């Protein structure tokens, strides 16, 4: 099966549990299980290749410009992790089906689980570090959903947030580290990076890259001092803990360290940072775990400790230590997942996981007891279980390790950690299952159904078998995975077996087991001493830190963003003027090369109209209706100016937009105060006036200087003029630019316009859903109302004009390619034609006759434009390439067809829909009960009933 498919399957399958939950919980769980099983089978098909030492690859250039390619590869290490992720995933899916209660939304659970699974598989199969980062962040996000799955529990939410904050910020550091790494090598492909050890280690950027990448690994793998999030994440349901916190997510950090081991390891920096961190984490986790009464907390800290162990082994930087690390990854995943599931079983059946309230369960829960016994003894390092083998390899390695000149430091501390590790493992058995039966369990404990114990039982079978037949069963896997870690097949001699003779490691193991038993004996006084001793509470520190950060962010945001929009505008204007002045200082002004053109009397008159109207708008802006009329004058003069200055298309557009805008503003003004009474102090107005005058003078001078000079560089307009007819088949160059040369821009623009209209619609819906509706319904008009809201003359005139106006729109549309016109203008004219019906006959009357929703018109417009563009693909041309030709249909004159006209039709529809949707939404504010009438006109000569009062004021 292709690696693409293996990585994609969990994501694709994530849809099904959420959908199938309606068919029952079994269907949902089966969908998740089947998806995982398929991916697992696909992975297993690669066994022959992987065990032959081949590297399976799948490559796809995604964003080659960024170096981000969807390249996957599968070697021994990736295979090991993918097997763990998918295999344990299967067991967890089975377990969770029976663990989750009826109230838990199971569909969501499996969807999140599969998303997480997909992200994990993506990490371990990625051959591109940028792609790996994407998956890495996805695991942080999906694990957030999983940890916070029980949304009603505050601990769950807090734990999820803490996990996200810690692993997410580590991920950010890692992005920086990976970018540096890619920069050093010049490629983001892992397979290339792994070949360049010397280049990377010689680079001065090696240390920063190492630290940043390790930050990502340490946060993810809960290494000291970032270990604190893992115990808090235990608020998650137990299947999540078993999956994320034993086998997968926390191992992602280890995976990455192992993956980059060939190029990053082997330096003193690597040794001191990684091995020391691992050692401290191992010791600290083991000690704390012994004093935790919550079963899951005990397991969480024990996981922290074991992760530290593996980190330390990787940190040693020797090949044999890497072998031990890989072997322990396998062993830890088997016994720890079994233990987590067992803790979940105890919790599920006894309704508590507080060790102080448990004890004597061995007769009540014999199956669970057996599982815990085997898994715990393996964790404690007792032969013949698998934990013993790798733990002994670890101890053996510590003996050969020199830390800062000392031979005893590392093995000594490792021995203490092993001692505590044995002690807490024994405690799990002794304090929970041994001892007398109690009478005060919160619920009567008993073994669960096979659905829950099958998974852990399978895992402990592996624990025993790997322990007994390690070389046969685990040997090949360890060999290929360790080979991949160390970047070569020349592994040093090692043997996976129980008896190595009387080695120092064996004495240490014996000491650890005996010492562990002694520690457990002394548990009561030790616990009392531990409780009494002062120790930093990680959560409190974290909370204080987060609180401080939040305060800081709030301070900055409130300082800059205080809601005074006038101030923002003022600062922005000042900045624009400042930066323009700066730009002006840095440039030179060449001499004018163009003549000033003469002015006739009419432009002069128009100019006076414009200036006077603009001045009046400013002077009279407090009287809103008057200023609206005045601004209409400005708009008209601008339209006329466009027409005079050889831009008929612009004139038509401006004119029709003007009409629509006026209607819109009048509609809005209907509901707003008619005056603006608030006056700023005089000095503020003087200041604003000064800014305005400076800005105006600047704009004026700039455009004046520009108009008197020729283009500094040849303009592309010549190309447009030359090719408009030859290439686009139209003589109206502006229209050809819109629908052909720059068709993509226009396509984007109609989408924006449609979105704007939809935003208006959505806002209307939202506002009308609040108490505003009551206010509007009780509102009394604040201006005198027309006695006849729908005068007969106007209704008749608009009805007659409707077909005429639509015909004009059609005419403008069709001639647009060759003469002034086109989709935009025609759309506006058609919109106005429809608008007239609303105005004359009333909103209710018009909307009752509306057959098609405007949303649909916008959508169809965009779709038609897109389909036209796509059509070019069928002729092997780029998106939006147009074509045209001529038709001769007697007795008609020869006429032209162009695909651009179809595109223009899309523009037309989008404009009609957007304009009408916007205005219709606003008009809905005016709706009042009792408006509905079957007659459009209040007074109708054909009717003999009395005129009725109608307050429709649209």
């Amino acid at each position, binding site marked *: 099966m292709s690696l693409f498919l293996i990585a994609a399957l969990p994501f694709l399958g994530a849809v099904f549990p959420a959908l199938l939950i309606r068919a029952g919980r079994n269907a949902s769980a089966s969908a998740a299980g089947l998806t995982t099983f398929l991916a697992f089978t696909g992975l297993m098909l690669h066994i022959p290749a992987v065990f032959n030492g081949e590297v399976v690859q799948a490559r796809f250039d995604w964003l080659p410009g960024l170096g981000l390619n969807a390249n996957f590869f599968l070697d021994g290490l990736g295979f090991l992790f993918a097997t763990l992720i998918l295999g344990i995933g299967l067991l967890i899916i089975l377990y969770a089906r029976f663990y989750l209660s009826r109230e838990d939304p199971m569909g969501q659970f499996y969807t999140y689980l599969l998303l997480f699974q997909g992200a994990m598989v993506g990490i371990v199969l990625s051959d591109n570090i940028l792609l790996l980062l994407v998956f890495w962040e996805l695991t942080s996000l999906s694990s957030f959903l999983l940890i916070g799955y029980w949304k009603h529990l505050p601990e769950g939410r807090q734990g999820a947030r803490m996990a996200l904050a810690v692993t997410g910020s580590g991920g950010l550091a890692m992005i920086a580290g990976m970018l540096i790494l890619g920069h050093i090598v010049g490629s983001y492909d892992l397979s290339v990076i792994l070949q360049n050890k010397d280049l990377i280690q010689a680079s001065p950027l090696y240390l920063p890259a190492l630290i940043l990448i390790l930050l990502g690994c340490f946060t993810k793998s809960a290494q000291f001092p970032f270990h604190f999030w893992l115990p808090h994440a235990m608020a998650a349901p137990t299947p999540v803990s078993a999956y994320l916190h034993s086998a997968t997510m926390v191992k992602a950090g280890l995976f990455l360290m192992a993956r980059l081991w060939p190029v990053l390891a082997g330096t003193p920096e690597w040794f001191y940072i990684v091995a020391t961190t691992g050692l401290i984490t191992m010791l600290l986790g083991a000690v704390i775990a012994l004093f935790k009464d919550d079963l899951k907390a005990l397991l969480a800290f024990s996981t922290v400790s074991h992760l530290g162990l593996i980190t330390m082994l990787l940190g040693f930087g020797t090949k044999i230590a890497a072998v031990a690390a890989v072997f322990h990854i396998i062993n830890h995943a088997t016994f720890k997942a079994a233990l987590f599931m067992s803790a979940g079983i105890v919790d599920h059946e006894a309704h508590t996981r507080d060790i102080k309230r448990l004890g004597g369960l061995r007769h009540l829960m014999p199956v669970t007891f057996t599982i815990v016994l085997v898994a715990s003894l393996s964790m404690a390092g007792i032969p013949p279980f698998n934990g013993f083998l790798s733990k002994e390899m670890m101890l053996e390695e510590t003996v050969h390790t020199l830390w800062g000149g000392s031979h005893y430091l590392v093995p000594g501390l490792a021995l203490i950690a092993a001692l505590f590790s044995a002690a807490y493992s024994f405690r799990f058995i002794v304090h929970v299952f041994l001892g007398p039966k109690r009478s005060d369990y919160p619920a009567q404990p008993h073994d669960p159904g096979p659905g829950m114990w099958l998974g852990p039982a399978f895992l402990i079978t592996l624990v025993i078998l790997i322990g007994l037949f390690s070389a046969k069963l685990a040997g090949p896997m360890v060999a290929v995975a360790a080979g991949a870690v160390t970047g070569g097949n020349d592994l040093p001699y090692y043997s996976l077996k129980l008896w190595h003779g009387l080695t120092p490691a064996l004495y240490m193991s014996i000491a650890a087991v005996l010492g562990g038993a002694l520690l457990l004996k002394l548990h009561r006084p030790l616990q009392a001493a531990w409780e009494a001793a002062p120790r930093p509470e990680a959560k409190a520190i974290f909370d204080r830190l987060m609180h401080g950060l939040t305060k800081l962010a709030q301070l900055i945001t409130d300082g800059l963003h205080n809601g005074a929009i006038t101030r923002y505008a003022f600062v922005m204007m000042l900045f624009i003027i400042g930066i323009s002045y700066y730009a002006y200082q840095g440039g030179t002004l060449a001499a004018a090369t163009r003549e000033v053109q003469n002015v006739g009397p009419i432009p002069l008159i128009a100019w006076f109209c*414009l200036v006077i109207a603009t001045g009046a708008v400013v002077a009279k802006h407090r009287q809103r209706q008057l200023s609206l009329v005045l601004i209409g004058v400005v708009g008209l003069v601008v339209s006329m100016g466009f027409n005079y200055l050889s*831009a008929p298309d612009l004139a038509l557009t401006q004119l029709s937009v003007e009409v629509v805008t006026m209607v819109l503003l009048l509609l809005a003004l209907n509901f707003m105060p008619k005056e603006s009474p608030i006056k700023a102090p005089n000095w503020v107005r003087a200041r604003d006036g000064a800014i305005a005058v400076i800005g105006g003078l600047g704009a004026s001078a700039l455009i004046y200087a520009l108009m008197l000079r020729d283009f500094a560089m040849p303009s592309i307009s010549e190309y447009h003029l030359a090719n408009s007819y030859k290439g686009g088949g139209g003589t109206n160059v502006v229209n050809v630019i819109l629908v052909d040369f720059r068709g993509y821009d226009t396509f984007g623009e109609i989408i924006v316009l449609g979105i704007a209209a939809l935003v*208006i619609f959505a806002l209307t819906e939202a506002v009308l859903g609040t108490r505003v509706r009551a206010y509007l319904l009780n509102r009394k008009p604040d201006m005198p109302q027309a006695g006849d809201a729908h005068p007969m003359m106007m209704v008749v005139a608009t009805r007659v004009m409707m077909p005429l106006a639509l015909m004009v729109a059609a005419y403008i549309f069709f001639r647009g390619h060759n003469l002034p016109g086109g989709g935009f203008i025609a759309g506006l004219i058609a919109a106005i034609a429809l608008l007239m019906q609303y105005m004359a006959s009333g909103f209710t009357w018009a909307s009752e006759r509306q057959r098609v929703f405007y949303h649909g018109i916008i959508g169809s417009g965009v779709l038609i434009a897109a389909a036209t563009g796509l059509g070019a693909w069928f002729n092997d041309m780029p998106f939006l390439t147009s074509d045209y030709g001529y038709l001769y249909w007697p007795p008609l004159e020869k006429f032209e067809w162009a695909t651009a006209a179809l595109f223009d039709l899309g523009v037309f529809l989008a404009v009609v829909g957007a304009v009408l949707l916007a205005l219709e939404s606003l008009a809905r504010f005016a709706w009042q009960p009792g408006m509905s009438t079957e007659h459009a006109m209040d007074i109708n000569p054909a009717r003999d009933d009395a005129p009725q009062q109608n307050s429709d004021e649209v």
Partner: protein
Amino acid sequence: MELLVASAVGVLTAAGIYLILRRQTFPVILGLSLLTYGVNIFLFATGRLAVNAPPILNKYEEIAYTDPLPQALVLTAIVISFGMTAVVVMIALAAYLSSRDDRIDMPDHPEDEGENA
């Protein structure tokens, strides 16, 4: 001619800026509209001014055409500015109807809402 257009741009820009700095929504909307006119004319004028030279190709005689590119840009700008105005108007209206107040600055303390800023 150039002076007329340049001064018109200046007047429209100045009026637009002044009105944008007012404290209630409606003048700000008017200011935005005026500024839009100013900016559109500015853009249009970058193609230099020409009278009686529309960019409609004439296959019968060789004549001069004005620059079509700024016209195409401005045409879309006009339509988009309608969309923008409509959204701004809608936001202003919704804000006014929700709080019965059309000042554009948020009050520093919600309890002083009755006073004028």
